[in-house]
């Protein structure tokens, strides 16, 4: 049975993606018998090309994706390079989990109320410093270049890249390299970039690609912060998909294939960028400069990373404040009155979305953890090491733009009468949750000391007993943390729940984004806060349960 798990995992990951792409490819060429498309033709592509502002939407998606990824990557690398081993670094490490657990939509809202012309930052300095009696008419949120959207994405991608880098650092002996480069006279950043980064980058390359693909195709952050005239390509595809003129569905499908090409182009440009950077580094390495004078860059890195953490936390605080605010006019720093009215009136309405989110989250994260455990156990029993092919398969759902294959998957599910069913929705969540769970579980799982297992085998216990009675209990904290990561990912999923759930399974995230474009900032604040608290609860459980279970076992306490 265990032998089937890798094949099963493969199927779970690749199957829906391939089915979705097929489901999108056929209508893109005009074939969808259900709504009258009987013959293959290039008509939909022609209609797509006639859409106003199409090139601009594509360019927006491309640039937002590339700039977001590049900036997040540079900031994270500079921070690790400049501050590894310091107390500040350890403080940042502890912040990574809470920052990661804030869903993208909540972080985007928080940023919006912080930076908008009538937002908190402007109110801090108005009107005493700026003379602005009325908010300035500056286009900040929803700006046409997508800068606000890039900021909203960067503050969330930095913790993610930091997490994967931190996981990879111990394996590449960064400390020893650091000593060697320091003794050769290189500055901290230069030494890191020349000595450690090539090895580190090889480990985090796929997560970086995942960030790039996500940034080009994200919808919920685009709806909140992104440009509206025209919106990025993924938002427009969603609009065409939901158009009452059914002919637009062919256009949406061809748009999905176009988006695949746009994301592919972004990845290609990034790969070229890698090669160019490699050449540049090679030249710099032999140029003889030691880069000792990197104080400015180090301080810039820590300022930017602290700013990103501050933005997320301040945003959440502001949303909490808005949710209990009475009348709050510009330029007041605090509301005129506080009221719990909004919470009292809207909490009953949150019951169903919260319940749905929790049920789907628990189901998909438990299933993902079970499959991940099965795959890892199979790998360790068969003595295998993960191949590149397996890794790419793992990352495939994250590399293909969501809108592209979810659209097609929706068509497949409607045809199979599975749309709106809870099981279908959990399966689709599983596709996205599983890579993160496996990623966060693999390293601690493989790092377990096998001698415990050897001793048990020597005492005539079978491999099953080793798994259930020794390895799993010993690694309970990483397993629960991985499940909590999966839960957080599932809570934050917007597009899958929207498209596959067919409106029958509203979750707290779909509610929050539906309210996003509305004006009631108080209810938005309450919803975003609830949305941010759910993953936090998951992580707290992951900390508390092992602490309780093993409170009498000193050896099970986490190393300080």
């Amino acid at each position, binding site marked *: *049975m*265990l032998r*089937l798990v890798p094949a099963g995992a493969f199927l779970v990951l690749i199957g829906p993606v391939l089915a979705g792409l097929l489901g999108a490819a056929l209508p893109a060429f005009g074939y969808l018998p*259900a*709504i009258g498309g009987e013959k293959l033709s290039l008509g939909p592509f022609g209609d797509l090309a006639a859409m*106003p*502002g199409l090139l*601009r939407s594509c360019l927006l998606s491309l640039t937002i994706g590339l700039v977001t990824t590049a900036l997040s990557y540079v900031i994270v690398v500079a921070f690790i390079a400049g501050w590894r081993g310091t107390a500040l670094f350890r403080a940042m490490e502890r912040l990574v989990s809470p920052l990661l657990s804030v869903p993208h939509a909540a972080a985007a809202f928080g940023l919006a109320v912080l930076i908008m*012309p*009538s937002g908190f930052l402007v109110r801090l300095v108005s009107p005493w410093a700026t003379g602005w009696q*009325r*908010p300035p*008419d500056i*286009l900040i949120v*929803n700006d*046409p270049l997508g800068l606000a959207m890039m900021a909203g994405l960067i503050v969330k991608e930095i913790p993610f890249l930091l997490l994967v880098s931190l996981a990879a650092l111990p394996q590449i002996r960064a400390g020893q390299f650091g000593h060697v480069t320091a003794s050769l006279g290189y500055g901290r950043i230069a030494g890191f970039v020349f000595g450690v980064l090539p090895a580190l980058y090889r480990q985090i390359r796929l997560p970086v690609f995942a960030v790039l693909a996500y940034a080009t195709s994200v919808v919920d952050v685009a709806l909140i912060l992104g*440009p509206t*005239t025209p919106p990025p390509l993924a938002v427009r595809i969603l609009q065409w*998909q*939901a*158009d*009452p003129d*059914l002919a637009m*569905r062919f256009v949406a499908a061809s748009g999905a294939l176009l988006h695949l090409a746009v994301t592919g182009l972004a990845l290609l440009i990034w790969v070229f960028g890698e090669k160019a950077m490699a050449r540049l580094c090679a030249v710099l390495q032999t140029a003889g400069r030691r880069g000792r004078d990197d104080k400015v860059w180090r301080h810039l890195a820590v300022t930017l990373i602290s700013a990103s953490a501050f933005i997320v936390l301040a945003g959440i605080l502001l949303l909490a404040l808005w949710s209990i605010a*009475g*009348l709050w*006019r*510009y330029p007041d720093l605090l509301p005129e009155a506080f009221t719990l*009215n909004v919470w009292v*009136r*809207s909490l*009953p*309405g949150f019951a*169903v979305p919260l319940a749905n989110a929790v049920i789907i989250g628990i189901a998909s994260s438990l*299933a993902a953890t*079970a*499959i991940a455990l*099965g795959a890892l156990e199979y790998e360790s029993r068969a003595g295998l090491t993960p191949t590149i092919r397996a890794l790419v398969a793992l990352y495939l759902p994250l590399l293909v733009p969501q809108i592209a294959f979810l659209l097609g998957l929706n068509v497949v599910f*409607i*045809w*199979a*009468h599975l*749309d709106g069913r809870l*099981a279908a929705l959990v*399966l689709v969540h599983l596709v996205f949750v599983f890579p993160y769970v496996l990623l966060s579980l693999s390293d601690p799982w493989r790092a377990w000391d096998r001698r415990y297992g050897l001793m048990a085998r020597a005492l005539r216990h079978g491999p099953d007993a080793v*798994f*259930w009675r020794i390895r799993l209990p010993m690694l309970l904290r990483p397993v629960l943390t991985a499940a909590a990561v999966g839960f957080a990912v599932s809570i934050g999923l917007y597009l899958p729940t929207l498209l596959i759930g*067919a*409106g*029958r399974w*509203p979750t707290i995230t779909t509610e929050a984004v*539906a*309210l996003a*474009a*509305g*004006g*009631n*900032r*108080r*209810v938005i604040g309450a919803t975003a806060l609830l949305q941010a608290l759910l993953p936090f609860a998951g992580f707290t459980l992951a900390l508390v349960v092992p602490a309780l279970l093993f409170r009498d076992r000193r050896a099970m306490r986490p190393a300080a």
Partner: protein
Amino acid sequence: MIKTLLAAPFLTASLALATLAPAAAQTPDPTNWDVVLSAARGQTVYFHAWGGEPRINDYIAWAGRTVKERYGVSLVHVKVTDTANVVSKILAEKAAGREEGGAVDLVWINGENFVALKDAGMLLDRPWANKLPNYRFVDVAGKPTVLTDFTVPVDGREAPWGMAKLVFFHDTAILADPPKSMAALLDWAKSDPGRFTYPQPPDFIGSTFLKQILYELVPDPAVLSRPADEETFKKATAPFFAYLDELTPYLWRQGRAYPQNYGAMRQLLADSEVDITFAFNPADASNAIANNELPDTVRSYVFDAGTIANSHFLAIPFNASAKAGAMVLADFLLSPEAQIRKQDPNVWGDPTVLDVAALGEDDRKRFAALDLGIATLPPEKLGLALLEPHTSWLKRLETEWARRYGVNQ
């Protein structure tokens, strides 16, 4: 044991994926109300209604609790951002051959969305709304828009729910004398740029504002009640687009971004980003003031040449899973009790479709006792009611607007 444990998720998944047979549903006959009530008990009605305004969501939640208590009907409010998406879903279901067990039981609808469903045969196969018990209270004589939805006859396929009239709001402390015509609006915008905007079409309030401009600038208003073709559209809208070309640079954010619905626009008024906002609900500002969202200096006004008025409805698709439950819900929402609560500006403030004078004495008294709110114009001050143009005008307007102003070069 590990084998069974790993097999379990696969087994449950495959069991769950097995399709359940949808319950067969024939169209209930509302004249036989007891049969409808007993059929409705235990059903779950998926009510697809615009969910961008929390107080409307609260009202729907109250209605859900009440019908659950009294009739055993469970209500799930599916919050949609655009009713056109619901039309799309029903059309797709029809095209996929889903003749029963559809995802939508009741939809809050009017205008071009209703026409799209009616023309495609997506509505319930026979008239039902005018046979509901509470339909006898509807003011068909005094409120003609409950019988004709955007120039298309309703034919009893949708139940009227509320009245709407485009009303404007301003903060008297900031702008004491607001512009009351499109020409005056342009002059004011030029003198004080960046203080006016409208929701981005195809949002229904934004589209209505476009229709409002069209009414004031079209050379011959009579063409609007007839379908539009290429020729008439070009001729009629030439002054319209000339006006928008002139106005757009003086809008909020110079027209490079728009709020996405009227709630967002109202928040802009609260943030002092714009000076004027508008809504279909004459009591919207009073409601906002009561909820501490707007200062109490906000007042409402209408344009001198009149503003667009219409009704909004509830429709049942042909393949609804819970037809009886949907009828029970629609009938309850038409009841004097529900209509009184709906018109209360502390709850929602949406005007009633009922003929108040013809109600029983208690209900009449309760209607009269409603305090309309300090920012609400009384019905006699609401000005001339302009009828909705034919739906073909709006479709062309929206496409052309998206081409000219929806994309910044």
